[in-house]
């Protein structure tokens, strides 16, 4: 197989060489535990502190409001479980959306089994949550609103700042899962009006296994990991120093090139959509075309199924995903597409193409060239595609 054309940046990204370079000494020579007293440990503690300050500045937070975690999943789980535990005397009602990541949805399901009540707000056909719906859903016993900043499948950007105004007015803590937007959209925790925010470094060219939670001062939350007193007792566990240093660098690099990357990726994405929609019948766009992450394209192709498209594209060295990339082997249709009102059988025919730094115009043109014959072939194979066969269309 020749060069890989990676178009699955929403799933994960390679570590930027500059990021890896800056991480390296923290594995070997500067390996001290930041929780120790001697100079070697002090150097690590200072590196962690510097990373904390740099990240805090980028998102308009105080350094003490940054808590390092093992990734987005831990941050999401913590926001929900930690608030649920700390605020259970106030109430047991949480509000979220129908299109959150599994890290949020499975956690609220767990909470439901433990006696909490959850409102899952619907979204419109483009995937947008209505801030007024948030307002209406808030009750006296509501202890948390958790709405994602940008969706991982369809790239829809939610009106977080407006929702933040609603929650602020109502005095309800507000968490946003910014795993997909961090490094891609400007983030300011005060403009967004959030009390908690999750990030994961590997989505913005940082390492896997490190993330963070922004935790506004005085937010009531129980730790998820108890132990050695790290992170002021809010999150125990030996600091992943190389990961933390790498995440800070990755966020810095992403922030610096954010505007340029956005323009470039959106242009390539639009070129891709134009090329595909001109050459393929019965192909549809999923999600909102305006309030959307620049590098995200999510489409569905009538009569064929997602995984078979992925496998076919992989033969040409092209990496894309279908549904939420996190659930290999799961055959359930994407809950996000269902929430948009897309019927089940169509939801199986979706493809997520997410562009990134490595994406070139040639990649896009190659995709436009190889994809139509794949669609043709899979439709030939399909018992439900009837444009050119004798049987009647089923759906």
């Amino acid at each position, binding site marked *: 197989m020749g060069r890989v054309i990676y178009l699955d940046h929403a799933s994960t990204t390679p570590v930027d060489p500059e990021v890896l370079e800056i991480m390296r000494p923290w594995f070997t020579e500067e390996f001290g535990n930041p929780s120790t007293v001697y100079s070697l440990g002090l150097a690590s503690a200072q590196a962690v502190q510097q990373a904390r300050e740099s990240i805090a500045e980028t998102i308009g937070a105080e350094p003490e409001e940054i808590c390092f975690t093992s990734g987005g999943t831990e941050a999401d789980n913590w926001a929900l479980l930690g608030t649920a535990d700390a605020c259970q005397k106030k109430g047991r009602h949480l509000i979220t959306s129908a299109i959150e990541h599994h890290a949020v949805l499975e956690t609220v399901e767990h909470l439901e089994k433990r006696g909490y009540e959850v409102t899952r707000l619907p979204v419109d056909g483009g995937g947008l949550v209505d801030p007024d719906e948030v307002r209406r859903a808030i009750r006296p016993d509501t202890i948390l609103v958790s709405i994602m900043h940008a969706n991982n499948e369809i790239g829809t950007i939610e009106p977080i700042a407006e929702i933040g105004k609603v929650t602020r007015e109502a005095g309800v803590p507000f968490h946003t899962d910014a795993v997909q937007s961090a490094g891609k959209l400007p983030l300011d925790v005060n403009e967004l009006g959030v009390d908690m925010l999750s990030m994961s470094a590997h989505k913005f060219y940082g390492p896997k296994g490190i993330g963070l939670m922004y935790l506004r001062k005085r937010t009531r939350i129980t730790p998820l990991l108890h132990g050695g007193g790290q992170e002021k007792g809010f999150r125990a566990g030996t600091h992943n120093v190389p990961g933390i240093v790498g995440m800070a660098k990755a966020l810095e690099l992403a922030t610096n090139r954010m505007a340029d990357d956005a323009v470039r990726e959106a242009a390539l994405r639009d070129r891709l959509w134009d090329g595909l929609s001109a050459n393929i019948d019965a192909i549809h766009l999923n999600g909102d075309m305006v309030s959307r992450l620049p590098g995200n394209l999510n489409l569905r192709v009538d*009569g*064929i*199924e*997602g*995984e*078979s498209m992925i*496998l076919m594209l992989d*033969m040409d060295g092209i990496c894309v995903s279908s549904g939420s990339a996190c659930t*290999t*082997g*799961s*055959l*359930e*249709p994407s809950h996000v597409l269902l929430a948009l009102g897309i019927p*089940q*059988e169509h*939801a*199986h*025919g979706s493809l997520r193409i997410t562009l990134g730094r490595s994406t070139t115009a040639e990649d896009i043109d190659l995709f436009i060239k190889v994809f139509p014959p794949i669609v043709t072939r899979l439709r*030939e*194979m*399909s*018992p*439900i*595609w009837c444009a050119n*066969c*004798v049987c009647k269309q089923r759906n």
Partner: protein
Amino acid sequence: MYSELVMEHFRNPRNMGVIEDADGVGEVGNPQCGDMMRLTIKVKDDILEDIKFQTLGCGAAVATSSMVTEMAKGKRLDEALEISNRAVAEALGGLPPAKMHCSNLAADGLQAAIKDYRSRQAAK
């Protein structure tokens, strides 16, 4: 995720298509799973003379469809009915655990086609 043999059947599926004047048609599928399969068969002297499939679904669904046609073609109907989904999966060198439930309907499709053939015969 998939074995080399599964991928080989996915890349080069055997007996793909529709027999226009089929003697029996079997359709199975689970809309929950996004998998659907249509098998058309041609029967002569109780022997599966020809068999073709169309499948909507994941790699496993395509590969098991392809494999079942290979396994069944030329067999007597009663022999063909013995083919189980498990046997198809085994012939492919196994499937990933998550794919064992759905996507492994090929033998069911074959049985449905043979049943359809027999009921048509009975109706004659």
